[in-house]
């Protein structure tokens, strides 16, 4: 377990400019939800930032927001999760080498390397400590959190910077639309469930968390545990997995007050959440969040921001309600996310 002592989030909502928890909701009718980026001048030297691509800037800025909030000068580890890294840089190189192969500009190549964000944050903070990057679809952020939780157990680190960060481009959206990943036409994010159709609404985001062995004054909540499971030939068996996962923390399904689910508007895959909730948590309050940030490989970063704020402020904003139920108290939140019914993940977050 680890305390969440600071959060920095750049998302399609106004999370970068305001600490208030979802006070104002931004509605989009678009192909994908795009991040509202902060002015970078207060985070990155303008001379350096000129050469940086968008994802790197979002990464550095959100990392700095999180350490500032936690009052942390030097993390003992920097761990980043990203499904796709800098898509913009990768596309630049692909565009060049598939047309005419000639001497490349090395900058996009360097920035396309997945661990660039983690190492740029290390350079900015002059941090020589442990550094790693996970690049496994919707396990990317979760794997980094597990790594961080282990560091605390192993007592090799007391303060960890853990992130989930991904970007979308129109080009990438069009390519991945071919395989049914996204809605074919712009839809309103606030009316996502009204017209059931295949494909999710895409999004992006950069979320950094300061995980601490000790609680600070800025603490939000307690991240008790994270679990991932790859579903191959029915290997994901929540009936045995879930009770085991909860029992490690002396909890049962009855102790869960609120389910935070990864519903993304894809009629082919949303039923997995509904079945899970109905089967294991009948009558429980269900919350969702992807209508606010869109679907992307590290969207659970936005989810953890939501869970942390619900528990810290002891509020359950209506915009997050998926069903009509109200939680009896706001103590234990179970987040459950899956990607195409293959990558399943649980996160357990508890109020301080």
């Amino acid at each position, binding site marked *: 377990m680890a305390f969440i002592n600071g959060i920095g989030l750049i998302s399609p909502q106004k999370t970068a400019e305001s600490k208030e928890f979802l006070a104002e909701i931004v509605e989009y009718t678009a192909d994908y939800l795009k991040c509202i980026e902060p002015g970078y001048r207060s985070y990155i030297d303008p001379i350096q930032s000129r050469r940086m691509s968008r994802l790197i800037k979002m990464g550095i800025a959100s990392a700095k927001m999180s350490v500032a909030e936690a009052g942390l000068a030097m993390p003992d580890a920097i761990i980043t999760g990203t499904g796709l890294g800098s898509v913009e840089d990768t596309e630049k190189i692909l565009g060049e*080498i598939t047309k005419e192969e000639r001497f490349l500009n090395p900058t996009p190549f360097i*920035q396309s390397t997945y*661990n660039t964000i983690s190492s740029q944050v290390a350079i900015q903070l002059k941090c020589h400590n442990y550094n790693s990057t996970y690049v496994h679809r919707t396990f990317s952020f979760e794997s980094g959190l597990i790594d961080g939780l282990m560091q605390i157990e192993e007592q090799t680190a007391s303060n960890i910077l853990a992130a989930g960060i991904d970007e979308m481009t129109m080009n990438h959206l069009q390519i991945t639309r*071919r395989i049914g990943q996204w809605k074919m036409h712009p839809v309103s994010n606030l009316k996502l469930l009204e017209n059931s159709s295949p494909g999710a609404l895409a999004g992006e985001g950069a979320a950094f968390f300061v995980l601490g062995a000790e609680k600070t004054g800025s603490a939000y909540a307690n991240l008790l545990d994270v679990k991932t499971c790859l579903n191959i030939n029915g290997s994901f068996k929540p009936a045995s997995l879930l009770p085991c996962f909860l029992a490690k923390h002396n909890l049962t399904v009855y102790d869960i007050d609120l389910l935070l689910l990864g519903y993304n508007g894809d009629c082919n895959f949303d039923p997995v959440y509904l079945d899970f909730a109905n089967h294991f948590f009948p009558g429980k309050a269900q919350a969702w969040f992807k209508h606010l940030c869109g679907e992307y490989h590290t969207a659970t970063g936005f989810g953890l921001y939501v869970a942390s704020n619900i528990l810290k402020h002891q509020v359950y904003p209506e915009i997050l309600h998926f069903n009509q139920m109200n939680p009896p108290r706001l103590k234990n939140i179970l987040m459950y996310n899956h990607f195409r019914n293959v990558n399943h993940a649980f996160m357990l977050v508890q109020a301080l």
Partner: protein
Amino acid sequence: MPRRIFITGYGIISCIGNNIDETLTSLLQSKPGTGRIRHIDTILKDELLVGEIPKSQEELFAMAGITPVEGYSRNALLGIIAAREAFLQGQLDENRNLKTGLISATTVGGMDRCELYYNDFLTNDSRNAHIDAYDCADSTERIASLLGIHDFVTTISTACSSAANSIMLGARMIRTGRLDRVLAGGCESLTKFHLNGFNALKILDKDPCKPFDQHRAGINLGEGAAYLVLESEESLEKTGNTAMCELAGWGNACEAFHQTASSPDGVGAFLAMKKALEMSGLQATEIDYVNAHGTGTDNNDLSEGRAIEKLFGESIPMVSSTKPFTGHTTSAAGSTEAILSIFCIQHQVIWPNLNFRERISDLSFSPVEKLLTGVQVNAVMSNSFGFGGNDTSLIFKKV
């Protein structure tokens, strides 16, 4: 007492061999595998020397035992071939009740097909089976699905230290009790994408690379895959596997210096090696051999050399880079060289640093030049350093 981590299986493919036996034979014959590019259509074809595996996509399908079908990258096929060899030796198909994980590493992922079909991705549906295969997780999930591993599956990408980090994570998952055994390593195929990228950085040698030589001129990129089976002591009791050696120490540190260059004094390399050494409980004098990262670039070899001098002081162990044999297999280098290091303990040999002629004037030591046999090797340090100053060091010890 923390749980001990044992190595009980391994599998490898690179330009010096399609499996463990062939790899060992090439090494014992001091036979490098580098040559010209044959399987990638690039303007750099006749210009660069690389460690390409002399097999076509069709041949790799046959070696992997898979009927050719759209959607497999070269990277995934290499991964499957090496992972399966390790899986079988470690008998992971038995004792299915043990908690088993797969941690793989790659950075170019399925880029080898993506760059061939990118224009189709943009304009038509003919290559849709490859769209999903372009990311880093694809090869990992194909291996997991083929071998039936699901308790914990993830992919690491820290450029050229990736596979060393997957071994390190595997060990930590066992030590913290999350898993009993882990298949850990990495795979990377050559691509036009990173051949051009490295070429743009002007760090590729057109001739056989010369690590730790005064006149070194850069890297020979290579490709391959290598996986190790890591087990806890309790797992060994159940599987009955024999430990080849113990993973006694590991350390990771960050240079926090530059995105692609190493710091002049090798601060990241020094910290990573120091952490690994401290954890192993060994004295610096007990390390018999360092399998260096030794890429052959101006920058890396001097910086790594200085870090080695700083850590070992007056008693520098035998050092060599095996990259002239295999080429620099980037994200697979960490596990490839871990296996080459384990060979040293098993067969009491030290691999030569091929192509070395003249000591770097700023360093006090030279690498091992000729194959040494019949030497006592109890502990080996294996270094892997990557872009972003991501440095990892592993220590393998005789049991």
